[in-house]
């Protein structure tokens, strides 16, 4: 039999089993086991066999903790998604509010979860309240953005059809918008499910009694390598399972694969009103903040209003000192954050480009990257600390990894968007792979890259603050941890506000660069 005929026969016999991802997973586990065996004496890495052994002896402890965290995550998931649905509904009913709704949503999404935890703890007291709120906070934005895109995703003629039978906006919502938005909703939910688990765990890091996060802290303090790795492995498995389960559900319900939504598309009209909208968002945020404290009659010792934070930062006798402390901490954090952020972006985009040049690798890497993107990287922060120590390397790596996976997936997706006909034109001039890469593929990738870069800003802030809070004892994360334990609520609130504002500003800065670059390479994205 000739080689070609043989290949055809084999292809017919196993038509749909994709070997690539399984091969990738096998290689990953084999490498991990090997490294674990080699590094037994270093007390940093547990091999898969060590983890299995730990889980089989401590399964009761682990399942109890897992159920607690899962319960909190599920409650947060439901609440956060309901919030996203109502916010999207508000933006739909009252389109003018959309920019302010998304702006406020972004600002809240930028809240440093680690520091929000202890503040919530004061109000909720013991129990699951803060974990559930943090899970909801981690979730609603990832659902809101695709939902807003989805509700606008239907072509105009479908709405004309509804109108041509004399029906109004409600019929359009029921018959057209809701169904057209469904795939986008699933996209959001798919990312939200692991994010909810992450939120619940972060909540448990900051002063809960039970759950996976509590065990993680305990394992870390006790330098129990097997336990730390077992916890991170379970968290990762849960995240990937949640991601895959929602994907499977989506495939049953939908006609096509859920679309890849990276961020809200930018609009030109938004540019004209950007400053006014930012001002409105700030005003609304301050009013909501002060209003909540007044409405719930919160204790002024714990609950600092906008005025008190302003006092603490600018008017109080020790304001100068407060600002210096904050400034030093922020500088320290920036030294970890910025290199990690840039390294993650570069590595993600670089690997995506390399994978495109070697298509055989891409079929292995893409499914792995998509699955790993769902891993709540922050829950693996303790591992990174174990592996790389409490110094700069560990934190920078954590931030980079946090940024890396979403960027890789986004860039691979972007690279696939290269119009085939344009590539055909290049082929017809016998252009080599590098010419095609530089002139066609990379420009086609840019919108996806920038969307990932924008969303990576709050994500990297979360990563750096968690690492500092848990382990390194440096930077703004550590300052917040210290303030929380010393009940220095002026400092804690000031830090939360400044970190949120700075991440929102970082997000806006990336948007400005994005706009400049896309105006040149992808003007159609700005319309």
């Amino acid at each position, binding site marked *: 039999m000739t080689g070609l005929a043989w290949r055809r026969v084999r292809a017919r016999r196993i038509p749909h089993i994709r070997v690539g991802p399984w091969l990738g997973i096998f290689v990953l586990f084999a490498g991990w086991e090997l490294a674990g065996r080699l590094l037994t004496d270093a007390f940093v890495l547990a091999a898969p066999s060590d983890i299995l052994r730990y889980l089989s002896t401590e399964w009761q402890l682990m399942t109890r903790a897992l159920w607690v965290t899962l319960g909190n995550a599920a409650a947060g998931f439901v609440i956060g998604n309901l919030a996203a649905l109502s916010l999207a509904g508000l933006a739909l009913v009252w389109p003018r509010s959309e920019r302010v709704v998304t702006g406020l949503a972004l600002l809240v999404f930028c809240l440093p979860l680690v520091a929000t935890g202890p503040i919530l703890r004061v109000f909720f007291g013991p129990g699951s309240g803060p974990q559930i709120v943090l899970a909801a906070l981690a979730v609603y934005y990832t659902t809101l953005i695709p939902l807003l895109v989805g509700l606008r995703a239907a*072509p105009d*003629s*479908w709405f*004309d*059809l*509804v*109108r*041509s*039978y*004399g*029906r109004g906006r409600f*019929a359009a919502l029921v*018959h*057209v918008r809701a*169904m057209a938005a469904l795939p986008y909703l699933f996209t959001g939910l798919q990312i939200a499910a692991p994010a909810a688990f992450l939120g619940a765990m972060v909540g448990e890091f900051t002063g809960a009694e039970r759950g996976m996060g509590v065990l993680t802290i305990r394992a870390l303090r006790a330098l129990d390598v097997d336990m730390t790795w077992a916890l991170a492995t379970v968290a990762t498995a849960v995240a990937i399972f949640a991601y895959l389960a929602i994907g499977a559900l989506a495939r049953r319900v939908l*006609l096509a694969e859920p679309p890849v939504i990276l961020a809200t598309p930018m609009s030109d009209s938004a540019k004209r009103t950007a400053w006014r909208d930012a001002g409105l968002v700030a005003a609304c945020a301050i009013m909501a903040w002060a209003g909540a404290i007044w409405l719930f009659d919160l204790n002024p010792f714990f609950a600092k209003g906008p005025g008190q934070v302003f006092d603490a930062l600018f008017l109080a006798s020790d304001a100068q000192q407060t600002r210096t402390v904050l400034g030093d901490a922020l500088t320290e954090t920036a030294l970890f954050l910025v290199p990690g952020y840039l390294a993650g972006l570069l590595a993600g985009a670089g690997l995506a480009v390399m994978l495109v040049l070697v298509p055989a690798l891409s079929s292995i890497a893409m499914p792995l990257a998509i699955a790993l993107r769902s891993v709540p990287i922050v829950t693996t922060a303790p591992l990174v600390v174990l592996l790389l120590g409490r110094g700069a390397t560990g934190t920078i790596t954590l931030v980079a990894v946090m940024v890396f996976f979403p960027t890789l997936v986004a860039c691979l997706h972007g690279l696939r968007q290269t119009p085939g006909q344009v590539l055909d034109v290049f082929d017809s001039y016998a252009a080599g792979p590098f010419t095609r890469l530089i002139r066609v593929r990379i420009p086609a990738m840019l919108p996806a890259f920038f969307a990932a870069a924008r969303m990576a800003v709050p994500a990297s802030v979360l990563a750096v603050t968690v690492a500092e809070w848990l382990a390194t004892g440096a930077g703004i994360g550590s300052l917040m941890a210290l303030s929380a334990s010393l009940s220095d609520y002026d400092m804690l609130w000031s830090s939360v506000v400044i970190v949120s504002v700075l991440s929102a500003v970082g997000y806006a800065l990336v948007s400005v660069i994005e706009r400049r670059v896309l105006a040149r390479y992808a003007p159609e994205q700005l319309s």
Partner: protein
Amino acid sequence: MAPDSTPPPEIVCTGIAKTFEGGTKAVQALDLTFAAGQTTALVGPSGCGKSTLLRMIAGLEVPSAGEVLIGGAPPAETLRKAGLSVAFQDPSLLPWRSVRGNIELALSLARRPVDATAVDQLVTLVGLDGFSDARPAELSGGMRQRAAIARALATKPGLLLLDEPFGAVDELTRQQLAQDLPRIWEAQGTTTLLVTHSVSEAVLLSDRVIVLSPRPAKVVADISISLPRPRTTQMGRSNEATDLIDAVFAALAEGMAAAERPLAAQ
């Protein structure tokens, strides 16, 4: 005529004009009357405003000046009673509904009872037997157009507005549709307005062809077509039809020549 169909209305447009935001004048002060039960084709160069005219008659676009009366009432009234159907340039089938589901959607939007047998008959009429349960993605471009036309006919509208309904269809299917479909709406007794680029199609399908100038649309010629019905593709090659086609082409050319800007400058 089916018992529950609306009687075909007369349409009177008085001085209607449309200027879009940004100042583009699509249509300028048109006076047109379309007789009840007639089929009229609107022909003109691309972007001349004929679709805008159709959309104003459908009540989907509000004229900047003038008024449209359908059977003596404004379009909103007809819309409210679901008395018209539009077949859009793009078939606009909802991808998550089957052919049957898309046809039934029109009935439920129009708040009419869904009669399964009537839907089956429509599916047969447009030659989609065996595809009732197919989703739009499984159909060819021509089949989608036919499904969209079946949907437009489902409510038995008194007024049928077709905006280049055969736009995305290959030439052979187009001829077949042009021969078969008029019989359906003629049998239902509708006032039909057809926007098209194809001169031969306009002549073959309608009782009257209105030739429009480049933007803003003005009437260049109003040609009545007295070919016998039912019409066949062969009829399009008769001397009478050829003369009419030539007359429409001549009017189009005249409209282009009289336009303020020559084509090259647009």
